[in-house]
């Protein structure tokens, strides 16, 4: 038994999600990523003397949306707070945030555990706040440059309960959070660009212990995978330390992705006293029941709901349901496909197979996929009806549909002579022709070489120009040969 089995880890995550509002949290400045430095800044973002924040109401709506998705309590009365600290990219010298009255408390997010079961991860709180600007250290040789475009960008901070046990669970949790944010159109969830960020609180304790170990905060992970790596490293490091009989320091550590290690940044003694107090420049917010209901009415379908719908109502496998709901746009596309076909498995196969590989080959998103979802549904239907063969559908009709997205698949099949022959009389004509043209093989078949059926089938398809319904043709061919 390895030493690692003596211990268990306790992990809580803090996720910061930049909201996709048109304007910033407390001003009319444009909220966008990638603009030229210091262009989306007015006197408010710059924190000039005499300026005041004005609440962007959209941020409340977004926060309620996430709260509803997580089944959190939504506070009817809230006020903002100032978190005071000095930093060059913090122009006011304080961040407007929520301290004692977060908009959402409680709730949960479901993740897959390492063994594939579902596990509930508690949400401690979700609150609204503003982002700081960005300090840029690597552009100018001598100076640190400050870009305040990001200053004032609205954020949601999502704090989980310390319910995560492994780095894989942390990975799965972040994947679920990101999926949820994307489904809700709150945040684009791009960790590389920093629109979604994550800090991890990690501690270890002896298995079964009731007392948590000393917590270490890990920062600077720019991908979900790196969060996983950082946690993995941190767990081993802490266990090693404890095994050596050394105490764990309560500190903040940064993750070095190149080396795969965490490095101490700040100890508890050096921590800031943020001197939170109620923000006097903003009125408290009240959220009415009606307001919550209005948001509820416009809530999109959530990935977990769709997942269970696909399994329970559509009879899909959990693998299929997972793949289809991983990405909101794919799920929405599939939802549209199944408006026109009742063959859900067939539709799922087509979307997960032909459609997805087309997207992969072209490196495009489903939003740019030319074929309307309705036509995929119709295609599944005409395959089921035996009008086109599965192989003709994939290999010939599908590319034609890409080229002619406005034309229905049946019309395209007709125009391009892809309707398969399901008429028994004409099939029998073809069979007769094949038998006549191959007397030697026919004789051998009659003498018991049943394996020659494949050869006859091949010739039959050739004679029919590939249009023979293979299933029916096969059946008729066998009957005809056996009765000779």
């Amino acid at each position, binding site marked *: 038994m390895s030493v690692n089995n003596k211990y268990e880890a306790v992990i809580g995550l803090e996720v910061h999600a930049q909201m996709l509002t048109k304007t910033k949290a407390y001003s009319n400045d444009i909220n966008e990523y990638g603009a030229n430095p210091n262009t989306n800044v007015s*006197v408010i973002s*710059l*924190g*000039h*003397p*005499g*300026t*005041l*924040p*004005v*609440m962007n109401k959209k941020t409340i709506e977004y926060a309620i949306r996430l709260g509803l998705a997580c089944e959190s309590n939504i506070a009817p009365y809230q006020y903002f707070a*100032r978190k*005071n600290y*000095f930093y*060059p990219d913090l*122009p*006011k*010298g*304080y961040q407007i945030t929520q301290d004692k009255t977060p908009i959402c408390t409680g709730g949960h997010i479901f993740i897959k555990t390492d063994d594939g079961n579902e596990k509930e991860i508690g949400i401690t709180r979700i609150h609204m706040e503003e982002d700081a600007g960005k300090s840029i250290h690597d552009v100018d040789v001598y100076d*640190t440059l*400050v870009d305040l475009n990001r200053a004032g960008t609205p954020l949601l901070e999502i704090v989980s309960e310390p319910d995560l046990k492994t780095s894989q669970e942390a990975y799965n949790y972040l994947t679920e959070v990101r999926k949820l944010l994307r489904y809700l159109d709150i945040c684009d969830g791009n960790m590389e660009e920093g629109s979604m960020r994550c800090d991890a609180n990690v501690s270890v304790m002896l298995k079964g212990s009731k007392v948590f170990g000393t917590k270490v905060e890990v920062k600077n992970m720019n991908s979900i995978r790196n969060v996983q790596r950082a946690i993995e490293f941190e767990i081993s490091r802490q266990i090693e330390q404890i095994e050596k009989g050394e105490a764990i320091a309560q500190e903040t550590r940064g993750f070095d992705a190149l080396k795969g290690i965490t490095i101490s940044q700040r100890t508890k003694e050096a921590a800031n*006293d943020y*001197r*939170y*107090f109620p923000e*006097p*420049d*903003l*009125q408290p917010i009240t959220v009415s029941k009606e307001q919550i209901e209005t948001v509820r009415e416009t809530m999109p379908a959530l990935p977990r709901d769709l997942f269970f719908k696909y399994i329970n109502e559509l009879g899909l496998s959990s693998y299929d349901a997972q793949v289809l709901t991983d990405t909101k746009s794919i799920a929405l596309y599939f939802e549209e496909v199944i408006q026109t076909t009742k063959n859900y498995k067939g539709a799922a196969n087509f979307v997960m197979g032909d459609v997805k590989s087309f997207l992969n080959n072209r490196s495009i998103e489903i939003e740019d996929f030319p074929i309307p979802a309705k036509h995929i549904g119709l295609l599944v239907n005409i395959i089921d009806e035996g009008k086109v063969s599965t192989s003709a559908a994939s290999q010939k009709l599908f590319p034609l549909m890409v080229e002619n997205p406005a034309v229905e698949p049946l019309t395209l099949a007709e125009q391009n002579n892809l309707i398969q022959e399901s008429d028994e009389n004409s099939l029998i004509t073809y069979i007769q022709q094949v038998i006549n043209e191959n007397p030697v093989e026919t004789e051998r078949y009659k003498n018991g070489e049943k394996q020659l059926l494949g050869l006859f089938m091949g010739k039959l398809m050739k004679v029919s120009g590939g249009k023979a319904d293979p299933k029916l043709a096969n059946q008729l061919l066998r009957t005809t040969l056996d009765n000779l």
Partner: protein
Amino acid sequence: MYKNFAEVKSALASGRRVVDILEDYLKRIESKKQLNAFLEVFSESARQRAKEVDAKIADGTAGRLAGMIIGIKDNICYKNHKVSASSKILENFESLYTATALQRLIDEDAVIIGRLNCDEFAMGSSNENSAFGNVLNPLNEDCVPGGSSGGSAAAVAANLCTVALGSDTGGSIRQPASFTGTYGIKPTYGRISRYGLIAYASSFDQIGAFANDLEDTALVTEIMAGADEMDSTSSREEVTDYTPVLPAGKLKIAYIKECLEIGVNAHIKEAFLKLIEELKADGHEVTEVSFPYLDYMVPMYYVLTTAEASSNLSRFDGVHYGYRSPNAQGTEETYKKSRSEGFGAEVKRRIMTGTFVLSHGYYDAYYSKAQKVRRVLQEKTNEILAQADFIISPASPNVAFKRGAISEPIEMYLQDIYTVHANLTGHPAIAIPHGQKIDGLPFAVQLMGKFFKEKELFDYSKLLEKYIQ
């Protein structure tokens, strides 16, 4: 020399142009330079603006303030003009925008003549805390004009502008008005937008006006008042015509007994009691109420305002704009040295006090408790005002004192004993000059009214004027 807007208007009626009136004021400012009331005279932009207003008068399109020459306290932002809050830390800083309240006056064709000296970041009661020198009281140049809006009070008292804007966080308009024999109002919190007012204590600050008569005070207040989408603490309460009209019928007036039990100047007390007797004699109902919170007001005020100030003044860090210490190496030192060198002693004292009361382990004992008491104070004040039209008191316990006479911060803070009340509770309050003088120095009566009842406050003041002038 023009004493008020009425005199300006009669000059206009007799053919003088706004450009001429402006020149008269500019000359007067020049002749009173020793007062140090103006930190900067905006001669160029004011002359340009005066020309434009003259053109509008000729067109018949001029606004209600055409001809009015206004000075602004040096903590109100005016686009493309310097604003420093009388602090070295903002020396040579130019604002990129105009405060909403000021814009509303400009939209009515007022001409802005310059920025007026004040205590640094509006912290002070004598205008001795300015980084750019103290202001002299025009009525006795050995005395202070009061503070923090000392330059504004002095400028109006000396007729260097028709009206001046000030800001009032704990009495910074009413106390200097009292010291200079001018009218000064602190409107209801939220009545006038704070957008563009450099914040001292956000939940206390209000912009207000100084003038030489009630009518000008009311007119300018009315124009500045009203909701502003740039200030979410501004009220949507409707703004009516503020022109003062003598109220019909008898008034119900309350005064706080304890106000006269503290160290108030004997002459002021005597004049105040006489006024009360006269009002009673005329059939007005004057009620003495007990309000045992006076001792708490100044401490409460300093806990809460310094807390807010410590945060509001964080932005002056030497990084983005304003003064940056040339002696600093690196970020940490830039903060420390820029702020140490850029702020004056009183500002530093208040930042440190505020940082202390908000710090971990002290928050509940100070800030939290003061907030609770503030709510109690507001309730109790509303209870009095439910029974009375307004609360009357002296505006200040003293007349203007000599420069340097008060060196103890606590003693200086107690100068605000009558005025902080209205800032703690948000009620509107006005100082109107008493006709009498004590050794040539004026003093004022303060009326504190109900929320958003500025109009009534002006009407009551008009009645009061008959007794004291």
